[in-house]
């Protein structure tokens, strides 16, 4: 029982990170109907940016961890957002009018570029970081097992939900959010009504990348280690989360993220750790086949 509760806590923490990445997939898919295959790698870039920013701050003598983390958060969100913007500008915008496969191939190319760029620039070896947020609370005492809720888990979950709330507000209440929803309905019509479609799409990528950067920082803090390849798996899992929750739906992305986090954690805890990634891929396939509109998605009617 205690073991199970512990796995739930771990799963929700992990799921929050997936949820943050999933938002980027869901938003882009909602607006331009493409899978931004490079988004997982944007997340990886976010994690690296955060890592380096932190090391630079330490070198500059900023020693208060909360202050340093706050600055790191802002810097990595800003710089990663720039990556999101650049990727859209270079690889996707010229293909807005082309067939469906072209942007996908371009996105795969971008994903390969980002991965190998970071590998070349920072080396292929893993980058460890000592735990910055330590401590925690013991919630339950079992006979031989204590359930712990660590501070870092609190930070991850609270940050995620705060961002999620802020972001929902943005989409529901602001002008930008309205433009985004208009573009989601009908790009051409939105353009005719005077909405700057290019700008709206760019901003969607920027926001998605900024959230991915937050996820990157959380990942770095939680696991204390990053490498250039983390974007691939995290990307696939977050994409699964987005599809599971219902692609195009923001609460769906969050819900999907948490479900995937729980499934992965419980699978590793009770079945087999070797096959945990197989489980992730298998869920992706099963969901796409049997529940292509996801839990909170709208059913799609084929245009004939």
């Amino acid at each position: 029982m205690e073991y199970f509760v512990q796995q739930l806590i771990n799963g929700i923490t992990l799921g929050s990170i997936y949820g943050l990445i999933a938002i980027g997939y869901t938003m882009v898919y909602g607006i331009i109907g493409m899978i931004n295959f490079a988004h997982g790698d944007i997340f990886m870039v976010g994690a690296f940016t955060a890592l380096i920013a932190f090391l630079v701050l330490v070198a500059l003598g900023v020693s208060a961890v909360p202050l340093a983390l706050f600055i790191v958060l802002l810097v990595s969100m800003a710089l990663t957002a720039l990556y999101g913007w650049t990727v859209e500008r270079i690889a996707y915008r010229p293909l807005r009018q082309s067939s469906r496969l072209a942007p996908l191939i371009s996105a795969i190319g971008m994903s390969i570029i980002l991965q190998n760029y970071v590998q070349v620039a920072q080396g292929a070896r893993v980058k460890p970081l000592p735990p910055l947020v330590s401590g925690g609370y013991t919630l339950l005492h079992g006979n031989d097992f204590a359930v712990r809720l660590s501070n870092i888990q609190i930070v991850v979950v609270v940050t995620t939900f705060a961002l999620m709330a802020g972001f929902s507000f943005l989409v529901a209440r602001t002008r930008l959010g309205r433009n985004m929803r208009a573009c989601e309905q009908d790009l051409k019509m939105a353009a005719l009504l005077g909405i700057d479609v290019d700008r709206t799409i760019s901003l969607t990528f920027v926001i998605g990348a900024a959230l991915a950067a937050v996820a990157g920082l959380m990942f770095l803090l939680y696991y204390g280690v990053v490498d250039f390849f983390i974007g691939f798996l995290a990307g696939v899992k977050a994409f699964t989360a987005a599809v599971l929750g219902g692609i195009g739906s923001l609460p769906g992305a969050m819900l999907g993220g948490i479900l995937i986090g729980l499934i992965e954690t419980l699978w590793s805890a009770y079945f087999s750790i070797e096959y945990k990634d197989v489980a992730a891929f298998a869920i992706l396939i099963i969901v796409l086949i049997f529940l292509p509109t996801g839990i909170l998605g709208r059913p799609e009617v084929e245009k004939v």
Partner: protein
Amino acid sequence: MSAAQILNVEHLTMRFGGLVAVSALSFSARVHEITALIGPNGAGKTTLFNCITGFYKPTVGRLQLTHPDGSSFLLERLPEFRIAREARVARTFQNVRLFAGMTLLENLLVAQHNALMLASGFTVLGLFGSRAYARAEARAIDKARYWLDRIGLAARADDPAGALPYGAQRRLEIARALCTDPVLLCLDEPAAGLNNRESAELNLLLRAIRDEHGTSILLIEHDMGVVMEISDHIVVLDYGVKIADGAPAEVRNDAKVIAAYLGVADAEVEHAEAEAAP
């Protein structure tokens, strides 16, 4: 007019979420006739077509197709490709769907896929150059050439379909549907975007299809000139409901039809949304 029925639609309802696109519609189309479906935008005509050809599964209702030889099919139970292959219902699309990068001839050969597939021994015989397949292919090419002649495009057989002008693309799409040897041909606004001369040619073609090949035709059309001239029977839809059904002369004088069409300006605005939604 007591000819046999080819298509019998009973209590057909199609709902998309909260929107009822077609509501408890019943009518029938007779064999060897041209039946026209008319009505303002958003009346549910294309939705009805999609139900008949299997692209949508109706929420409620029965669609019975009876071949002249007496065999009959319940269309709501078949997937779309079997409706085309077995029930032999062919269709065209409101916004032309040709294989743009393939030649006219190839377009018409793809339409004969099932027959050719059988002749090629599901590819195995064809792969080793069987003679029977070569003969079947020659026959298929002859048939394609015949229809290209009929639509006046024989000279362009080897051009890509995407390079044709719009009117010719519409005709090619009809020819492609005819290459499947349909019993019922469903045409979705075949005269849209045609000029007067092209539209007159289309009338001749459709009549010839009915008279020479005995194909029954179901037609959605906005061009009243075309509808009144060639239809044997007209069904009028408005808001997904049938408001009139009869010979052209009867329908023309029907009070409800006049009201629906005079009110078309308002209805169009109100229902532009409904048209866009499904």
